[in-house]
C-alpha cells in the first residue's frame, strides 16, 4: 500500500515522480489534491450537471496539471493546477453545450411566451393558436415556433436540475391527491410498470392525466400548477424515457 502523504509532501512527491516515473507517485499526488478538484467543481454545480460528473471532469484537469507541472518554475502546484482544472470544467460545459445550448434571446422569449400562453389560455378558455401567441408577443410565428422547439432542447439539461423552472409554482398536492388517476390501467402494460415506478410522483401524475384521463396539456398545466410549456417538456421526456426503457437503456 502507498504511504500517507500530506500536502507538504507535494514537492518531494513531484521530485520523486519526475526522477523515477513511478506512477504510484502520480496517484498519490492526484489523491492528495482531490479536495481542490471538489472545491472547484462545486463552483459549477448550479449548472444542472451532477457534482460527481463534475468532479470526474475536474480530475482529468488535475491529472493533466500533474503531468505538465515543472518543479523548477517555483510556483505552488495548487496555483498551477487551478486554472487547468477550471479550464477542463469550462471546456466540458462548452462541449456539452454545443448540442443543447440555446441562445439567450430564445431563452428569454421562451420565458416570456410562458406568461403569454398562460394569459391567453385563461382569456380564451382554451389553448391559444401560434398565431394568437405571436400577435400578443409581438413576434413572428416562426420565432414562436423556434422558441418552443428550443424549449424542448433546453430541457435536456435544465430538467435535470432539481430546482426546476423557478417560475413554476410547486405542485398542488392537495387538489391532486383527491383525483382518481386510474394508473392501475398501467398494470396492463407489464413491461412498463417497473419503469413508471421510477418516475417522480409529478411525472407519474402527468402521464396518467394525459394518457389515461385524456386531459389536454393546458388542463394539466392548470391542475398541476406548472406552465403548459413545462408540461410539454415533461411529457416529451417521459415518453422518451419509456421508449428507451423498453430497450433497457433508460435512466430518468
Amino acid at each position, binding site marked *: 500500500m502507498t504511504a500517507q502523504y500530506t500536502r507538504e509532501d507535494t514537492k518531494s512527491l513531484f521530485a520523486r515522480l519526475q526522477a523515477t516515473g513511478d506512477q504510484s507517485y502520480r496517484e498519490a499526488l492526484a489523491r492528495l489534491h482531490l479536495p481542490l478538484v471538489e472545491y472547484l467543481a462545486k463552483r459549477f454545480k448550479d449548472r444542472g450537471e451532477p457534482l460527481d460528473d463534475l468532479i470526474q471532469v475536474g480530475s482529468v484537469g488535475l491529472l493533466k496539471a500533474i503531468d505538465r507541472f515543472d518543479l523548477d518554475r517555483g510556483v505552488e502546484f495548487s496555483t498551477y493546477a487551478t486554472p487547468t482544472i477550471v479550464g477542463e470544467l469550462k471546456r466540458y460545459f462548452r462541449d456539452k453545450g454545443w448540442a443543447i445550448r440555446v441562445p439567450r434571446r430564445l431563452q428569454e422569449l421562451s420565458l416570456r411566451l410562458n406568461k403569454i400562453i398562460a394569459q391567453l389560455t385563461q382569456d380564451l378558455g382554451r389553448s391559444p*393558436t*401560434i398565431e394568437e401567441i405571436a400577435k400578443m408577443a409581438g413576434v413572428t410565428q416562426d420565432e*414562436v*415556433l423556434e422558441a*418552443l422547439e428550443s424549449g424542448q432542447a433546453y430541457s435536456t439539461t435544465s430538467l435535470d436540475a432539481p430546482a426546476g423552472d423557478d417560475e413554476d409554482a410547486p405542485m398542488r398536492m392537495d387538489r391532486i391527491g383527491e383525483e382518481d388517476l386510474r394508473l392501475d390501467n398501467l398494470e396492463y402494460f407489464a413491461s412498463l410498470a417497473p419503469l413508471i415506478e421510477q418516475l417522480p410522483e409529478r411525472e407519474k401524475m402527468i402521464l396518467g392525466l394525459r394518457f389515461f384521463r385524456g386531459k389536454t396539456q393546458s388542463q394539466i398545466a392548470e391542475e398541476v400548477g406548472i406552465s*403548459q410549456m413545462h408540461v410539454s417538456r415533461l411529457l416529451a421526456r417521459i*415518453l422518451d424515457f419509456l421508449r428507451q426503457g423498453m430497450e433497457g437503456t433508460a435512466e430518468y
Partner: protein
Amino acid sequence: MNDQTVTIKVPPIAAHLAVLRTAVGGIAARDRFTLDQVDDLRMAVEEAATQLLRHSGGSPIVMDVTPTDSGLEVRLSADVPGDVRIIDESSFSWMILRALADDLSVESLQTRTTVVLGKKRLAMARDAE
C-alpha cells in the same frame, strides 16, 4: 393526399426524427391549430416514427402531411420487412397515439406499413369577429 401535401423523407436515423417532428409542428402552427394540438401532433409523429424506425429494415421514413377540411392528415410510412404489426392495438404506443390523435389507423400494403394520424382543427367560429 392532394396538391397541398407536404412530403418529407428522412433516413432511418433517430436524430432525423426531430426533423419530422419540427416540420409537422410548423405546418400545424400555420394552420390555426392550438398550442396543445401542435404539441400533440409533434409527439404523435415522434412516437409513430420511432416505431417505424425500430422495425424498418434500413428503409427511409416518409411523412406526408395533408390539410383536409377538418384538419391535418399525417401519413408516416416505411418498408417493414416480414409480417410484423409495428403497432399492436394492445400496445402502449397505440394507447399514446390514440390519446394524441383524433384518428388513428395502421395500413399495410405488402411490405409498406403506414401509420395514419388525423388531427382536427379546433372549431374557432366563436373567436371569429
